[in-house]
């Protein structure tokens, strides 16, 4: 165990813990209201939203898993880069409209919007349950980010002793999320992302200098990858898996409740659009981090599990104090998304399940209390899950989660532009996509790419994307059918003008 490394790590961890509690008074609002606790009063400007969404979407697990994938399979793992590029044009076109309609009607969750748009509690419930199911394993996976860092710092021993730091970290997280709501991860994200940027810039400059330059690193990777059945340059057989993984993941990302929570917390549609142009800075960081996988190959790093290669590489290349700093960045990087995800999941539960089906909540204070309590349950659940069952199941479920959340795209994203679809058709399309996608993913042993046979061709497609295609076909065909036989449609609470307003409090109905 290295005490310098551990000391720096603990210092930064304590720093953000203090920030988490200070955040309660930041842009002070009445935290007994769900709008304040769960969306920070929708007041974040361009800079804070940039840090919040960046810290939210580019999670510790991403920063550990993407280089690990590159380390293992090479070019195919680089799909994370086109994925996180093409997601922003989608954000630019879709999310300001979602922001505007949610601001106008005081919607807090994507399921609130679906309920208002289609007048269908059933479809809203489907969206809410999908969101919660997809988010839970994602929270659990953030623990993996903390675990690998703790293990690399040499805190081992009996199972109880090595789990203890993780339990402490999560309890701290649970308490300040409970008290400060979305303000806590937003404030911590500013510190955490600054640390991540410093770490990555140092890594991509210093490590190649030590390893003899990028030319040498890529040459070492090209030599080592064939033995692992990987490849440095994408071969033709991998074109379709690569492109469909990138597209499917991009369509799915902003359907996640934690992503939408980050969007809705901003104060104007312009903030959202500006961020579509600014957030690619994080994709650049992710792309550079991905290359750490090749650097680990060139440096001859070995590890029992590929998720350990990034911490081990940093440990080998940097002095102890800087490694401690980098590890703190990764561990704190797990807390920000975990906090936002648990807030988003509890917003969904409170608004679209508890309130809608069990007990009508008339008092906004009670609504926030329920959400706060649920956020604790969600985090403890994730912790117990990982400690009891291990990481493998969390990884499987997170893969399924991406596939599932993509099935809510037609209801949410298409709904922002058109009311053409029938809500029952969307519900059955969602069901078809969920069942088919889950079936092929399980049948394929939880590997994401599954060969689809169409018209005599075999297409190796990302399972989520083929389920999505089925979902859309079912939704279209049944919409035509239901309208033909006159199945009643729900009432649309929203109006055409609700989607265009960019500024806070803009008098939309004025024209």
């Amino acid at each position, binding site marked *: 165990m290295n005490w310098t490394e551990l000391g720096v790590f603990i210092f930064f961890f304590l720093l953000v813990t203090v920030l988490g509690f200070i955040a309660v008074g930041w842009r002070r609002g009445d935290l007994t209201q769900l709008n304040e606790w769960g969306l920070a009063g929708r007041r974040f400007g361009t800079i804070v939203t940039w840090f919040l969404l960046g810290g939210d979407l580019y999670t510790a697990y991403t920063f550990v898993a993407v280089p690990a994938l590159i380390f293992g399979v090479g*070019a195919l793992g*680089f799909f994370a*880069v*086109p994925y996180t*590029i*093409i997601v*922003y*044009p989608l954000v*630019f*076109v879709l999310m*300001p*409209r979602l922001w505007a309609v949610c601001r106008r009607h005081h919607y807090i969750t994507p399921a609130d919007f679906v309920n208002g748009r289609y007048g269908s509690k059933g479809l809203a419930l489907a969206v809410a349950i999908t969101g919660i199911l997809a988010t839970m394993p994602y929270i659990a996976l953030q623990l993996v980010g903390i675990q690998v860092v703790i293990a690399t710092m040499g805190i081992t021993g009996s199972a109880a002793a090595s789990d203890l730091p993780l339990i402490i970290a999560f309890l701290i997280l649970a308490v300040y999320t409970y008290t400060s709501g979305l303000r806590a991860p937003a404030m911590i994200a500013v510190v955490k992302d600054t640390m991540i940027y410093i770490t990555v810039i140092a890594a991509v400059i210093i490590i190649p200098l030590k390893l003899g*330059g*990028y*030319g*040498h*690193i*890529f*040459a070492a990777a090209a030599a080592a990858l064939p033995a692992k059945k990987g490849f*440095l*340059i*994408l*071969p*033709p057989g*991998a*074109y379709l898996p*690569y*492109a469909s993984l*990138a*597209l499917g993941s991009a369509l799915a990302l902003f359907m996640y409740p934690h992503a939408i929570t980050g969007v809705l917390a901003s104060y104007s549609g*312009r903030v959202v*659009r*500006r961020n*579509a*142009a*600014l957030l*690619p*800075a994080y*994709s*650049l960081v992710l*792309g550079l981090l991905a*290359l750490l996988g090749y650097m680990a190959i060139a440096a001859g790093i070995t590890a029992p599990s590929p998720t350990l290669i990034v911490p081990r590489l940093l440990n080998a290349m940097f002095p102890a104090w800087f490694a401690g700093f980098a590890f703190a960045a990764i561990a704190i990087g797990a807390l920000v998304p975990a906090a936002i995800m648990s807030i988003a999941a509890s917003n969904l539960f409170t608004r679209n399940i508890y309130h809608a089906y069990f007990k009508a909540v008339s008092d906004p204070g009670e609504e926030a209390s329920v959400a706060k309590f649920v956020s604790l349950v969600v985090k403890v659940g994730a912790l117990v899950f990982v400690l009891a069952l291990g990481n493998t199941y969390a990884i499987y479920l997170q893969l399924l989660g991406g596939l599932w959340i993509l099935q809510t795209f037609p209801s949410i994203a298409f709904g922002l*532009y*058109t*009311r*053409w679809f029938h809500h029952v058709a969307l519900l059955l399309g969602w069901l078809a996509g969920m069942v088919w996608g889950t079936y092929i993913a399980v049948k394929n042993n939880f590997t994401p790419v599954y060969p689809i046979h169409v018209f005599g061709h075999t297409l190796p497609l990302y399972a989520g994307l083929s389920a999505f295609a089925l979902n859309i076909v079912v939704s279209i065909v049944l919409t035509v059918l239901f309208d033909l036989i006159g199945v009643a449609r729900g009432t*649309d609470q*929203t*109006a*055409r*003008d609700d*989607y*265009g*307003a*960019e*500024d806070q409090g*803009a*008098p939309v109905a*004025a*024209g």
Partner: protein
Amino acid sequence: MRRDDDGGVSAVATGSGSGPGKRNDQAASSPAFHPLYLLLLIPFIALLWPPFYAMDQPELSGIPFFYWYQFLWLLLTAILTAIIYGLTRGGTES
């Protein structure tokens, strides 16, 4: 003024709004899909067709084309988005 600003955006968008297709008589079809948004399809084409870039050469200081091409598109997409934001944001009030 904020009100004029929003009116301006809607007027521009609805004036040319029949362009992007997929229209019907539903009141909720988009008032805010500016035709310039179609330019945002370019990065999809550039990145979702790997035959364009799945190759080794030309290298850029030791980095294979496959990798630096995608980094380049990261930059180009951000710039394109910023330009489209600038051209479509309507009024100058902020």
